[in-house]
């Protein structure tokens, strides 16, 4: 073969090699690009999990504040039957039925525990403890697990309609007798389930879900919204009367601390998904649970509840004004919702903490998947 021929062939091969090389480099760059994007997404995921976990701190504090007072009325099942004493209701002094509620984690009527025989409460109106079983939530030593997926429709849901009775304001409608008048033509609010309105309202009306409307309204639709499942949860342990250990989680373990607890939740735990054996929540697959646990963010906090609330008339410079207006002869504290002094009246919007206050929040370090108390070391109960 001549030298020229060989060169021609080499030249043709060179182009092919060059192009192939470029393609290979392009492919490698593409792979590197995709890997980088993937790692960037992973880095962002950590931030999202941190944010979710902190939202759980907020949710848990709100839960603690509310659980000292609320949540001891009729269950959803009980609410389907006529109200009666003993099923989430108590009898008032006049014999009337009252929804049962707690009086705070430390009851002002029994702070020294003498009138409750050493029980810690919360107590209801009749000084009966709302704790159904000693040692379980909400008793001291009890634990509650709260997976925070979103229900398809929550219990007692109402429609998101803003104004059921808008005032006619279009001048073209000035001839309408309703023009400019605030008329209560429609109930406000209205349930999210159909109840017959604007025709005859009926509890027994069968909704598209095939349930009586009242039952459908009370129970809601508990199925999780898929995009919200497995993202966040919180867990609260009542350490003492008013001090709690909060675990904030961003991940899919539902708040179980380990696989052993999945299989056999402690009797102190309330709200464990799938109890008495939650393995089915994880496909009966320990490896799956362990993978969820490894990718989860968990933060621990110690918080304390305080019964401090703010009365609606808590603004002490107002008597000063009144004192001046009366030539220094009288003092006065404005009543709630007083309207004679525009801009000075107090209403419920001025009461930001009707259920108490969180007096401190303390982040706890973690060691081996457990919170660490700065004095006593790793905590086994949380």
């Amino acid at each position, binding site marked *: *073969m001549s030298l020229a021929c060989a060169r021609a062939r080499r030249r043709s091969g060179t182009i092919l090699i060059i192009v192939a090389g470029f393609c290979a480099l392009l492919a490698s760059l593409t792979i590197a690009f995709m890997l980088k994007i993937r790692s960037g997404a992973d*880095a962002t995921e950590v931030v999202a999990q941190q944010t979710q976990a902190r939202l759980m701190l907020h949710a848990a504090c709100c839960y603690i504040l509310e659980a000292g007072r609320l949540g001891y009325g009729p269950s959803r099942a009980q609410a389907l039957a006529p109200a009666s004493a003993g099923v989430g209701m108590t009898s008032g002094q006049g014999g009337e039925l009252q929804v049962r509620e707690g009086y705070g984690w430390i009851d002002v009527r029994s702070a020294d525990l003498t009138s409750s025989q050493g029980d810690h409460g919360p107590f209801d109106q009749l000084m009966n403890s709302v704790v159904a079983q000693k040692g379980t939530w909400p008793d001291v030593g009890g634990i509650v697990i709260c997976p925070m997926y979103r229900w398809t429709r929550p219990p007692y849901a109402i429609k998101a309609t803003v104004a059921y009775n808008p005032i006619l304001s279009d001048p073209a409608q000035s001839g309408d007798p309703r023009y400019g008048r605030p008329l209560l033509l429609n109930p406000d609010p209205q349930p999210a389930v159909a109840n017959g309105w604007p025709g005859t309202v009926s509890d027994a009306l069968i909704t598209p879900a095939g349930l009586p409307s009242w039952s459908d309204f009370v129970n809601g639709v508990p199925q999780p919204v898929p995009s919200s499942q497995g993202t966040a949860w919180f867990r609260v342990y009542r350490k003492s009367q008013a001090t709690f250990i909060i675990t904030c989680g961003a991940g899919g373990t539902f708040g179980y601390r380990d696989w052993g607890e999945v299989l056999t939740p402690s009797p102190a735990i309330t709200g464990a998904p799938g109890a008495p054996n939650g393995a089915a929540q994880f496909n009966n697959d320990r490896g799956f649970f362990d993978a969820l646990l490894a990718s989860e963010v968990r933060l621990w906090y110690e918080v304390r509840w305080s019964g401090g609330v703010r009365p609606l008339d808590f603004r002490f410079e107002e008597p000063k004004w009144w004192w001046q207006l009366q030539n220094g002869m009288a003092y006065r504290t404005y009543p709630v919702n007083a309207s004679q002094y525009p801009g000075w009246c107090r209403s419920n919007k001025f009461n930001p903490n009707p259920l108490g206050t969180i007096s401190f929040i303390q982040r706890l370090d973690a060691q081996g998947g457990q919170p660490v108390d700065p*004095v006593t070391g790793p905590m086994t109960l949380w």
Partner: protein
Amino acid sequence: MPDQVRGARGGALCAGYTLIELMIAIGLGSAIVLTASASMRLAAQAVTIAERMSRNNELLASGISQALDEVDYWKEYDDPQGGAGMQRLRASEAPPGITSATGHALLFGLPFSPFSPSAANGQSSGSGGANFPAVWAAGSDQGFGYGWQDDERLWAISADNELTWWTGNIAETQESDVRFGHYSIFGVSRMPNENPVLIDGGKWGGLGAWQPRNGGGQYGMVPFGAEPPPPTATGGVAPLQAIPGGYRHGTPGWLYNQIHGLSNAIGWYGMMEYLPACAIDCYATQYHQEPGNGGGWISSPADSTDSAGRPIYLIQTFSTVSWGYPNRPYYNLQAFSPNWCPHSMDFLTSYTAFGLLPVNHNCYELTTAAQSTQATSARGIAANPPPAGQGTALTTDQLVFFHRSYGRLNCDDMPVGAWGTNNSASFVEPQYTQGSTVSPMVTGPAEMTLFSERTSTADDLLPLRPANWPDIAVSVGRYLRLCRFSTQATVRFSDPVSGEQVGLAFTAMGTTLRGARRMRLLDGNPVQ
């Protein structure tokens, strides 16, 4: 030449390219190579951009994580492993030139000052902290009520526990002659050896003592006996055990002592965080005339009053310059007890803001160019150059002042100058001034800027980065405003290559000051 390489015309096959074929081949080949190389270059650029964007995102994520860590661990305020230089907020001082009228040594602490000797010693041996004196030790001159009582049952309730009752007539505490009774006597804050206690004694109505108007005068000396034991000593209260009756009834003055002690020990922000929500920030002490009129301080500047025995407005905002002590005008704090009624955070924070100073890195204590750069990065704006002579690290003296001051926010809600006989031009407020002088006062937006800079951390995460690298800085500010403790975090990113700047501002919920102190064992052993 072998036959197999010859053509039909007997010539060599490889000689069959024409010029046109060659030109087309070269052209196509070049186009392919150029296209491939251009694609390669574009892909490489895209990857570079993606790499940079990814790095930027990772930096932002790091900044957010750093901000959230700071929210929980407070290291810019007090670094447990940082030694004394990074724990300046544990210091305290005896105000120079001031002596208590009753002979007690005054001691003003800072937000991380240890309450008790055990807490201070625990820090020195347990967590790498340095030794700092206890500011609220039992038996000391600052031992109001035997120190802080960390008991959830004492503080979680207010209605049932007499210890937490605030004794006084709220509706009557302004310019009152106390005609409905002198209830605050039941809650006088005092030291163990302050007995009997002189109550009231107003001489001049202009200071709010209206007793003379009704022919009054000093109420008299009231014997209280020895200081009652602290609540935990009477019943040996253990966690989850019943509280004996004496726990509730045997320690009058306990609440006022707690408020008094907190104010002195850790300043106003800390005091308001430790007290129960919506607590009334006032206490009563024995009578003593104000400094400047022949009197002196008793156990804190807040005790300067002309009508003691009635609750003192703890956060008094108006006091004349003459009441200050020489060269330290920023200690012009409180007086006018009945003239200005007791207030809660509702009032106090309606036109003011109480902040904490992150002494390890903040946007104002700029002593070096590097710190200035950090502050600039953290805030996203040019650092506000401190005036001549200012901007250096604050002394303990100044820190004590600023943790008993506030940022006054101008608003129409509180027309202070028009109230009563008070003329705002005659008074100096303990607000965020330049720190060493009273005049000129900093007001309006300038004061707000100063307040913001002093109370915001400035933390550059990449101080030694190459010049063309992006920068990431984190700032966290903590303040009390409108009845709420706020933690404001800002993450700022800047890319010198693209000029891109990103700022993320958010509030975060996390460890409170009291929680941060508990982390560091500064409160002693808690009782639950």
